């Protein structure tokens, strides 16, 4: 493999990892607060739809992003009401949100655009475009570093940079701020937080607001940056893969970056090398390459890559005892 292919792979890994990373960090806030969220998928999907639909109508990707955020937030608050206020089953709530997103996007897409559930092709300012980082063109000729900077690091949309900046930011919030301390505490022992005079529901609601925002960005990225419009069920399990990455990362921000990059790379390989010829054995079918991220997810969940201990209070609604 020559450098070009490696660079291309790295470049598309970054692109493909971005929605996973955003969703993974979204899940991190939610699960660190003690709320399981298998509805990441649905939040991304609804955000992707509203972002693309709004961008298509207004012609502005930024207005689209705002609409995507709002939609994702609404769904996130639905999950919060069900699992925090009404102490419902968090898994079931997540499943409901995923279906609601699938149904609503297709239904509204059909009603608004009559294009079989798709939004119109986004052109011009309705899409987030690549940003050339300063000096990319000038450095391009410098061996190795130049192409890496120009191809892999430079030339992504603003949302990609937001996603990658969210990693150190999340680390800082988690380990250096009051909110982070309380967030980590409430997922481990909500009773400790409650008896320390802090409202458990409020804290969890705050966490789910952040989850909603991050899923919103992820969805908007899918439909207005990575692609030029919304396609039905375009999240294709990314929300679940992000959850697997979160487990792989043991609920920590920096490892989350590497886990999602790994999945991004895998997907990039799957796209780049379809119908791979293996000397003597035959071709690896394209379907296998497409299923690879899902298979890897199962392998990671099977714990063949180390045991992960989730936040102790995860998944259980908080009820006072004694």
């Amino acid at each position: 493999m020559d450098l070009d292919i490696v660079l291309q792979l790295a470049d598309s890994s970054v692109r493909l990892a971005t929605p996973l990373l955003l969703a993974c960090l979204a899940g991190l806030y939610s699960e660190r607060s003690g709320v399981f969220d298998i509805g990441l998928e649905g939040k991304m999907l609804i955000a992707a739809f509203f972002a693309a639909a709004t961008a298509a109508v207004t012609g502005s990707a930024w207005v689209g992003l705002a609409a995507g955020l709002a939609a994702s937030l609404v769904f996130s608050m639905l999950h919060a009401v069900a699992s925090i206020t009404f102490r419902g089953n968090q898994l079931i709530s997540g499943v409901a949100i995923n279906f609601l997103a699938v149904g609503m996007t297709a239904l509204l897409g059909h009603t608004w655009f009559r294009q079989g559930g798709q939004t119109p092709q986004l052109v011009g300012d309705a899409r987030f475009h690549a940003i050339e980082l300063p000096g990319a063109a000038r450095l391009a000729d410098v061996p190795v570093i130049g192409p890496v900077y120009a191809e892999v690091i430079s030339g992504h949309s603003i949302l990609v940079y937001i996603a990658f900046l969210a990693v150190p930011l999340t680390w800082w919030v988690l380990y250096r701020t009051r909110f982070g301390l309380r967030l980590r505490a409430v997922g481990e022992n909500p009773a400790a937080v409650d008896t320390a005079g802090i409202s458990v529901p409020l804290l969890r609601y705050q966490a789910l607001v952040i989850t909603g925002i991050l899923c919103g960005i992820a969805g908007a990225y899918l439909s207005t940056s990575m692609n030029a419009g919304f396609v039905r069920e375009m999240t294709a399990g990314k929300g679940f893969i992000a959850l697997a990455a979160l487990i792989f990362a043991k609920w920590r921000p920096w490892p989350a970056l590497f886990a999602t990059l790994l999945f991004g790379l895998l997907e990039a390989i799957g796209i780049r090398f379809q119908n791979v010829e293996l000397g003597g054995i035959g071709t690896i079918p394209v379907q296998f390459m497409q299923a690879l991220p899902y298979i890897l997810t199962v392998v990671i969940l099977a714990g063949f890559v180390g045991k992960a201990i989730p936040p102790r209070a995860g998944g259980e609604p908080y009820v006072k005892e004694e």
Partner: protein
Amino acid sequence: MRRIPVWADVVLIPLINLLLAVFVSGLVVLYIGESPVKAMRVLLQGSIGSAYAWGYTLYYATNFIFTGLAVAVAFHARLFNIGGEGQAGLGGLGVALVMMAWDWPHWALALPAGIIASALFGAAWAAIPAWLQAKRGSHIVITTIMFNFIASALLVYLLVNHLKLPGSMSPETPPFPPGAHLPTAHEILAWVGVKFPKSPPVNIALLLALLAAFAVWVLIWRSRLGYEIRAFGHSEEAARYGGIAPVRIIMLTMLISGALAGMMAVNAVQGEAERLVLDSVQGAGFVGIAVALMGRSHPVGVILAAILFGMLYQGGVELEFEMPAISREMIVVIQALVILFTGALDNMVRLPVSRLFHRRGRGGGRAGAGGNG
């Protein structure tokens, strides 16, 4: 203890939840610019307004009974099997392989063969997530979802590369031999001299579904295994103490669950399509979740909820035809709302209802105490 009467728990609360889901769905229809009342009329007319309509409604209901039972059985062991879609897909593969393997002389032979094949394939597809949960503690919700994706990729691969007729464009198997054909309601009712429309696909698999529901009832509430499954579902700690091996319960429960989901293929693949097509399950695996939640994981509830969703699916087809502004995905929305209200937001209705009963109960208690004193 907040106790509420059984009828409130199994009838009143699910009914209120359902009405809430219907109400919100009505709002959605209103937003689209159509009349919810008219939509409801079309839906009911299209689903139960004629023998023809019933024939389709019950066909869909048969699918949902199988997938609903699959989810319900797993729920009793507190396992959330979201893999019904993939398990039913694999069940279809099993049916297709067996039906194409031999020129079946008569349905009386082909039916048991189809049942066994679909159940085995469905169970096998559930076995891996079950084993990973039992032995490695992998979250079964995520692994079963992943297995849905993997099943879909696998079926595409097999249909495109191996199972379709050479030269054919469409990724589907050739039709099964005539001897594999299952008696439809039209044919069965003709034996006893009752006329029933010819085209609806409802077939003998409906009886199989009802039989399966009865078998699940016996399993859960009368058998020793069911006793152990329920004990495990309520408290894993207690189960261990009681000499109930968690690995065994998880495996057996998921195998049964996967087999039930797989058996849906007897109805959809062997009974209706009579060939294996791409996406033979069409979301029925997911509907099973809503059906099990609404049916409170009880076979009778599952049957009723499955008929309700059968109405929704059949009525939805008519709805799309009559009112093109409303697309078929309306059904998915309603399904999601049912899961949301009956599953996740259950307490929203339950708490006020139980408070109501509690207030009445306390009033009664006071009167009783006065009588004693």
